[in-house]
C-alpha cells in the first residue's frame, strides 16, 4: 500500500504540475484563502425563507405539478389524507403484489417516525407477509433487504419539477432500502414538496451536507436495447409515491 507520506508528496507533485500549466514559474503553492471568490456561495437563506412561507394554495399547485411529472416516468403517485390511510394503501398493495425473486413476501421499511405510524406489522399480522424495520441495532439488515420485495422510505424532500424524491442517508435510513427491493414506495409529506432542483440544493445546503444523498425520479429503467424503454434494469422495476396531506 502506498503510505501516507508517499501519497502526500505524490499529491504535491501532481498539483504542482497543474499549477505549472496555469501559472508557469509560480514558486508558491496557491492557497484557497487568496482565491475565496471561486468558492463564493450564493446565499440559500432567501430561498429557504421563501420555501418556509408557502401556503396551502402553493402546495396544491406543487402537488399538481409533481403528479403531472410522474406520468412520463411511469411513477405511481397517490394522495392520502394521513399516515393511517397510507398504511391502509400499502397493506392492500402488499397483499396483491407479487414478489419477483422470492416466494415469501418480506417488506423492509426505514426506521422513521412516519413509517412507525403506518403500523404495518399490526395490519399485516395475519398475512403471510413479514415486515422489517432498519433499526441501527439490527445486524441483519442487509439480508433482510435482499429478501424484501417492497422497500419503504420516507423522503426528505420532493421536487415537483422533476417528480424526484431526495433521500439523505442516515444510520437508520440505509441506501439499499430504495434500491434492492423490486418495488419502492416513498412516503412524502406535503410540506416537504419543493418546486425545483435549485430549491432542493438550497435546502440541502441549509441543513448541512451529509456525505451521501440521492435523487430518485421514478423506477429504474434502460433503453440500451434498440432504444426500447424497459423498466426494472437494476433498481426497482416499480415505484410509488404516497403524498401525505
Amino acid at each position, binding site marked *: 500500500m*502506498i503510505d501516507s507520506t508517499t501519497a502526500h508528496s*505524490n*499529491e504535491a*507533485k*501532481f*498539483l*504542482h*504540475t*497543474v*499549477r*505549472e*500549466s*496555469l501559472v*508557469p514559474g509560480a514558486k508558491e503553492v*496557491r*492557497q*484557497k484563502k487568496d*482565491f475565496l471568490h*471561486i*468558492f463564493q*456561495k*450564493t446565499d440559500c437563506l432567501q430561498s429557504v425563507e421563501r420555501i418556509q412561507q408557502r401556503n396551502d394554495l402553493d402546495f396544491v399547485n406543487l402537488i399538481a405539478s409533481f403528479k403531472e411529472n410522474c406520468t412520463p416516468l411511469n411513477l405511481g403517485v397517490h394522495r392520502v389524507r394521513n399516515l393511517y390511510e397510507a398504511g391502509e394503501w400499502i397493506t392492500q398493495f402488499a397483499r396483491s403484489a407479487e414478489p419477483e425473486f422470492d416466494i415469501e413476501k418480506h417488506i423492509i421499511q426505514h426506521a422513521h417516525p412516519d413509517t412507525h405510524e403506518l403500523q404495518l406489522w399490526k395490519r399485516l399480522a395475519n398475512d403471510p407477509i413479514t415486515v422489517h424495520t432498519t433499526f441501527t441495532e*439490527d445486524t441483519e*439488515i*442487509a439480508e433482510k433487504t435482499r429478501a424484501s420485495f417492497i422497500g419503504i422510505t420516507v423522503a426528505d424532500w420532493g421536487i415537483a419539477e422533476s*417528480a*424526484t424524491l431526495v433521500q439523505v*442517508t442516515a*444510520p437508520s435510513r*440505509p*441506501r*439499499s432500502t430504495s*434500491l434492492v427491493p423490486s418495488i419502492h414506495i416513498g412516503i412524502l409529506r406535503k410540506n416537504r414538496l419543493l418546486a425545483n*432542483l435549485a430549491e432542493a*440544493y438550497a435546502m*440541502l*445546503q441549509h441543513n448541512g*451536507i451529509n*456525505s*451521501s*444523498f*440521492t*435523487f*430518485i*425520479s421514478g*423506477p*429504474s*429503467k*434502460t*433503453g*440500451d*436495447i*434498440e*432504444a*426500447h424503454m*424497459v423498466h*426494472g*434494469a*437494476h*433498481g426497482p422495476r416499480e415505484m410509488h409515491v404516497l403524498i401525505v396531506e
Partner: protein
Amino acid sequence: MKPSTISYTDGAKAGLANATLQKSLKKIQNGFGKKAMRHWQTMTDSDLRPRAKARRMQTLEHLDIVLAELAEKIREHGGHVYFAATAEDAVRYTLQVAERNKVNKVVKGKSMTSAEIGIDPALQNAGIEVVETDLGEYIIQLAEDAPSHIIAPCIHMDRFQIGKLFTDKLGHEYSDDPPTLTRMARKSLREKLLSADMGITGCNIACAETGQISLVSNEGNIRMSTTMPRVHVALMGMERIAATFDEHRELLQLLITGATVQKLSTYVSFVGGPRHEGDPDGPEEFHLIVIDNGRSKILADPEFREVLACIRCGACLNICPVYGRIGGHAYNSHYCGPIGAVVTPLLNGINDHADLCKGETLCGACKDVCPVENDLPRMLSALRHKLAYGDKYWQVKPYNRIEAAGFKGWRKAISSRKAYNMLLKVGRFLQKGRIAENGMISSMPGPAGKWTRDRDLKPLATETFTERWRKHHSSRKMEEKS
C-alpha cells in the same frame, strides 16, 4: 474493451454498411439531438449556458486549488484520495487497493476514464473477475466488442444479435424481446452486484465545496456498485469538478439535458466517503483517484484549455453529421464523435489520429448543441493547422509535405493572372475525355485519384466568367457612350 485498430476510412465504411447502426444513429439523432437543440432555443434561462461556461473556465483556471479543496474535504469524510499522474499510476493504485482488500470480483459502472486507463485487463490479469453492469456495456463486454456511443454503447447491435449473444454466452433460451432480454441481464447482474467485493465507477461531476462526487444513471447499476460492495473506487478525470455546490447544480442540469433531455436522470447519487458509523450499507472504504494522464498538457495550452470544460454528455454525437453516418468505431478511440476528434489527438498523439480532425465537416452543429458551448470547430481547425505546419509543443510533424508544397504552388499560381490562365488551359486539356455522361469527372490520375474515389468532381467550365464577359459584353460600354 479496446477500441478497434482499423483505419478511419475502413471503420467509416464498415459503419456505413451496418444497417442496424444506421437505423439507431438516425433514431438517436432525430430524438436526443434535435430535442436538445430545441431545448436550448426555447429555455427560459437563456443565460445558463454562457454563465455555466464562464464558471467552468474559472474553476479550470484555479484547478490546483479546487482539487486540493476536494481532497481535503473527502479526507474529512474518511475517504482516501490518490492523485495519479499517469494511467499506469491509477491502475497500480487500484490493483493495490484490490489486493489489500482481497478482492475477487469487481462490478463496474459505465466509465470512459476506466477504459482510457485500461483497468479491466489489468484486473483480469491479476485474476479478478470484472463485470460491467450498465446493460449496454455488459452486452459489449459479452460480445468482446467496443462501445460506439457515450451513453448508448451498443447501438450498433440489434435485438437479434443480442438475443443470440445471451444464448451463446449465458445459456438462456433465445429471445429477441427487449424486456425479456433486460430481465435476463437483470437476474445475472443482480447476483454479481450483490456478491462483488469492489465497485469501480467514474465520476460525472465532483463538488469541492461539499467534498463529494456525483454519479448519474437511469438503470440503478451505479447506485448498486457504490452501495453493495465493501470497497468503492471512483476514477475521475482531473477536470470533472465544480468548485461550489451551486456550480454543480447548473452543470448537472446541463449534463442531463445534453445527454438525454430528461428533467433529471432516474438516479443522481452523491458520495464523498465510506459509510458512517451505524450505517448498515455503503462501502467500508472509499477511494477517489484523480487522473491527469495528459490533461495538464491540454490545460497549459490556451488554445485547447476550453476542451476540458466538456462534461461528457454526448450531445455532440447526437447532432454531428459525420458521427451520424459513420458511428463510433471509426474514431479508434474511447472518445468518439466531435469531442473525440479533439480529445483523442490531444491525449494520444495528433499525428497518430490525424484523420479525426480532418474527417469532421466544421459545420458547427457540435458547438450549437454543446451545453458548455465548447468551440469544437475552432479546435478542430487548430489541430488541422498543426498538422499542416507542425508544432513543437505538441510534437506534431507536418502531416503531408507534398500537400503543403502543392498549396504553396497554388498560392503562387492564383496570385498571377497569367499563371492562372495557363493552369486553366492545362486543366481543360487534361479533363478532356474524362467527363462522364452525368457531366462530372469520376476518376482522376495519380494522387488526385483519392479525391474522386468516393465522389465526383465538377469539371472546369469551358469558359470563365471573365472570358464570357469579354466575348458578349465588351462592346456594351461603347454602345452606351454613343
